């Protein structure tokens, strides 16, 4: 695993108070980790800060799994 992937999963574990080893690419924020809309805003804000990306509102709505979050950040970080 590369470092972006590791770091994103660490942050998700922290923000959603979830066991780190239960987080994989297909983990669904709402269905698997019990996140609500406020958690998602917080999580995205944290990821924006960590990776220096900006996630517009319509993109936020499409990020539903851990893998989708990682993919978005990989595409947009440092750009």
């Amino acid at each position: 695993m590369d470092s972006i992937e590791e770091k994103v999963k660490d942050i998700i574990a922290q923000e959603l108070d979830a066991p780190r080893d239960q987080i994989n690419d297909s983990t669904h924020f709402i269905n698997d980790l019990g996140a609500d809309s406020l958690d998602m805003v917080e999580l995205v804000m944290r990821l924006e800060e960590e990776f220096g990306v900006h996630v517009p509102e319509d993109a936020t709505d499409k990020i539903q799994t851990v893998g989708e979050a990682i993919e978005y950040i990989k595409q947009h970080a440092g750009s």
Partner: protein
Amino acid sequence: MQRRRVVVTGLGVVTSLSRQVDDLWQRICRGESGIGPITVFDASQFPVRFAGEVRNWSTEGYLSNKEARRLDRFCQFAMVAGIDAVRDAGIDFQQCDSYRCGVIVGSGIGGLNEIETQHERLLTKGPERVSAFTIPKLMVNAAAGQLSIHFGLRGPNAAVASACASASHAIGEAFQAIRYGEAEVMLTGGSEAALTPMGIAGFAQMRALSERNDEPTRASRPFDKDRDGFVLAEGAAVLVLEELEFARARGARIYAELAGYGASADAGHITQPDQSGQGPSHAMLRAIQDAGVAPEQMDYINAHGTATPLGDVAETNAIKRVFGQHAYRLNVSSTKSQLGHLLGASGAVEAVLTVLAIHHQTVPPTINLETPDPDCDLNYTPLEPVKRPVRVAMSNSFGFGGHNASLVFRALET
């Protein structure tokens, strides 16, 4: 309308002196003080550098990390006090009709920590960095809402805000809900965590706070000639109130009966008490009448007694107005001398201590009352607790805004 009787069956506290009800009572009676230097923020540049702070705060064993992060400190206090009170009452809400169980919890200010934290982020990082939890954390009704969610209580639910009278009003309203048939069980009380830079600065600028920085434990001196203001404190208390027959049917341990509630306004100044004591005397009188007791039956008054120069005289005059010569025979004390002033939670902590005074037949002392003030000439139970019959007792709370609330508790007649 038929009035039902209401009893107190569970108590929970979070204070600077203790987080356990029995331990708090013993420390209060031993005359210990919970006041010390402020450590939650750097107060070195503030004119007041001490308070009744809840040290080493943790919600471990009560809330998950995720739950705790979604709650402002004031709400965390309320949750922990509430969970302890329910445990103390031994009530299983699974066995109750959830629509007949409610929550009314007061706070003077609400989530001041959250307001300050997020305002700082707003100014330094911009509007898109403000937390999504800002509003649900800071709102003054967060404690009542969160307690209902935690226990699944779907009955009457609200917050009361009347500054330093918030908790007493909350308890009074919860009492009415049971008395007039809206609920069987109510969690009620107050919570406050205004020990922040803005809280200290704001109260200090009013010249409301004691500035006895060199002697924190001696700073809260209700009714003493050398008092110089109140000591800000934080914490919470929650009481479980139940309809008498409901409590009996489940074999609950009953601490005392909540028998009367009276409320009034000074309609004078937004912060200064009326020296005649007329406003508070009306609340006290209403509470006594509501309880159906004669003034001569009053054994103990847990005073609002914040140790401000004007407030203590006004309350003394109010007590004399209501009780006449009996004012000199009953015992008064201010447990703010040990704990400081918990603002919108003070009435809840003091209701707990008033209930315990009945339960233990003991009047807790007013510590630091060393030099009597000629204008405060009642028996304030100085320095040492007094063992005496305590069958009827009252707790007073008065708030900025001119709000007055009094609660009358009595030993349950069997």
